[in-house]
């Protein structure tokens, strides 16, 4: 509790200051590559019969929206007098973004990663190490993201004096869900202004993939007050066979407590957390940020499911028709639009958050599609 209270106080005193905001803006603009473009997809729009727009977080430094959050938290930690960052990572995108932020701001960095994820995403392990981070293999439990979070929380208890825990998604104990939303909502703010500028109107629907939910909450939150804008979160359904592993905590989970948050969780009847699964490592988490659980309960956001094969098909379609190689996480959001196209009125404007690029997923995609690596 004490380090969380320290963080809450720092958020209140440091975040609003002009100095902090100026530094953060500088980092996002000059280092990470903001603002990111809003891209119209002419070929897909013609096929779908409505306008498809993409918010291009894939073009950011390190390849995904994660850098928005890590630069913000690293800068905040430095203002708090911390000299080191620790982080958990699943697919490795948050780990890479944390390693980059730490290197840029002259901080030490340790990343906890499930041993199984380290095998699946070895390129990201190498990237983290090149940027000076220590990558610690987590061998306990299911050896994936949730166990990496457990390990990072344990380490933080011991290291809290010098170290900030740079949490990667809009989940975990308060105030992390608020802090991550704060740093990620730059996505939605930019996209909202860009839509107004390019089309003269707000989008009719906004769609984002939801694992822990950081890209989605960042995209949604500036649109939540706009009653005319329908919001869709897309969870990973796994292979789709009966009884398969999945990551659809909002759709198929029950309320419970994990990692200091009360939210929707995949769990058995005794309250033990169940393993999750998805072709997209970044969506592979048995819980979801508590604000998503709330937005689902109030009905403001509709939560759907996309399956592995639908995401793969959307991945290929965006590559071929628009020349954009999306991350498998973002492919789930796109897949939902393609599979449920009848839910979007002809001529309407649909905005999809393309949260990351797919280079990291090449091996997984080629294996799944039975393609030869080129």
């Amino acid at each position: 509790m004490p380090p969380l209270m320290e963080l809450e106080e720092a958020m209140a005193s440091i975040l609003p200051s002009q100095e902090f905001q100026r530094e953060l803006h500088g980092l996002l603009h000059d280092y990470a590559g903001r603002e990111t473009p809003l891209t119209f997809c002419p070929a897909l729009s013609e096929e779908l019969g409505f306008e498809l727009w993409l918010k291009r977080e894939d073009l950011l430094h390190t390849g995904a929206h994660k850098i928005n959050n890590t630069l913000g938290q690293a800068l905040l930690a430095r203002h708090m007098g911390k000299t080191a960052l620790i982080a958990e990572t699943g697919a490795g995108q948050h780990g890479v973004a944390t390693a980059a932020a730490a290197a840029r701001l002259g901080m030490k960095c340790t990343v906890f990663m499930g041993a199984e994820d380290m095998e699946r995403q070895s390129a990201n392990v190498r990237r983290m190490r090149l940027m000076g981070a220590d990558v610690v293999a987590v061998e306990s439990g299911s050896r994936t993201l949730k166990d990496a979070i457990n390990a990072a929380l344990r380490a933080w208890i011991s290291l809290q004096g010098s170290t900030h825990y740079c949490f990667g998604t809009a989940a975990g104990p308060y105030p992390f869900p608020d802090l991550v939303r704060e740093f990620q909502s730059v996505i939605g703010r930019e996209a909202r202004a860009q839509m107004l500028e390019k089309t003269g109107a707000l989008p009719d629907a906004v769609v984002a993939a939801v694992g822990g939910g950081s890209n989605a909450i960042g995209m949604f939150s500036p649109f939540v007050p706009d009653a005319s804008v329908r919001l869709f979160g897309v969870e990973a359904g796994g292979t789709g066979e009966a009884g398969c592993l999945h990551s659809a905590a909002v759709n198929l989970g029950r309320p419970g407590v994990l990692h200091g948050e009360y939210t929707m969780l995949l769990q058995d009847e005794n309250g033990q957390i169940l393993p999750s699964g998805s072709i997209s490592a970044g969506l592979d988490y048995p819980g979801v940020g508590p604000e998503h659980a709330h937005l689902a309960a109030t009905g403001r956001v509709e939560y759907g499911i996309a399956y592995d094969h639908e995401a793969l098909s959307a991945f290929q379609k965006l590559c071929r028709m628009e020349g954009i190689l999306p991350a498998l996480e973002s492919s789930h959001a796109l897949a939902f639009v393609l599979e449920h196209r009848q839910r979007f009125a002809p001529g309407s404007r649909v905005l999809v958050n393309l949260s990351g690029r797919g280079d990291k997923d090449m091996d997984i995609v080629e294996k799944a599609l039975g393609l030869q690596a080129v």
Partner: protein
Amino acid sequence: MHILEENIRAAGAAGRTALIPFVTAGFPSRERFWDILRELDESGADVMEIGVPFSDPVADGPVVEEASQRVLAEGVSLGALLEGLKARRGLFRAGLVLMGYTNPFLQYGWERLAAEAAAAGVHGFIVPDLPWDEAADIRALLAAHALALIPLVGPNTPKERMQLYADVSEGYVYVVSVMGTTGERDHLPAEVPEVLSRVREVFRLPVALGFGLRSPEQLAALPDAVRPDAAVFGSALLRHLDRGGSPADFLRRWRS
């Protein structure tokens, strides 16, 4: 006076440090567990903490985590533990405390849990991932069945916050000796005497020291003025039991 406090005070009146062994429910095997509990009780345990297994025990070190995973794989559940305790109600001289994480308790239902735990002869709960700020309703539910919610304080708990705990707590106060998870350390951190003395200033409850205890010598090294009323040991005991060691042998060293 709460019965857990009575048990610890009685040890103090007899001139000894109260002993609080921790064993994960169903460890090292479902059958052996019940014998171990009886042997611990007969060998001089004043309070016994029973670990309720959870898939993601973030306050625990590797030994307790592995024990949890093992017993979960063997199908140990909270319901079965309560039934087993109920069948043995009145057999134990020691006080009984269940230590576990929020979610399994929440899914069981706090109200049902309080009623069934009391009926099974349990005296209190320790829930490391239940922050004080969220605990008021649960503490009241437990108190209605004379169950104590044991507060955990650490080296970084500010005095004002300790005072909040002290105003509402019963049983004993559990002082976490290290900034870290459960598990043995060779030496207690240098600040432990200072932490214990701060706890003494705020709490009138007996003080139990845990997390990181491996041997009685660690307690002997503490200044008399801050010596805790009770010692909690988990990981060292679990490793001893897993090697086939007997509870009596383990407690003998601590009793002398």
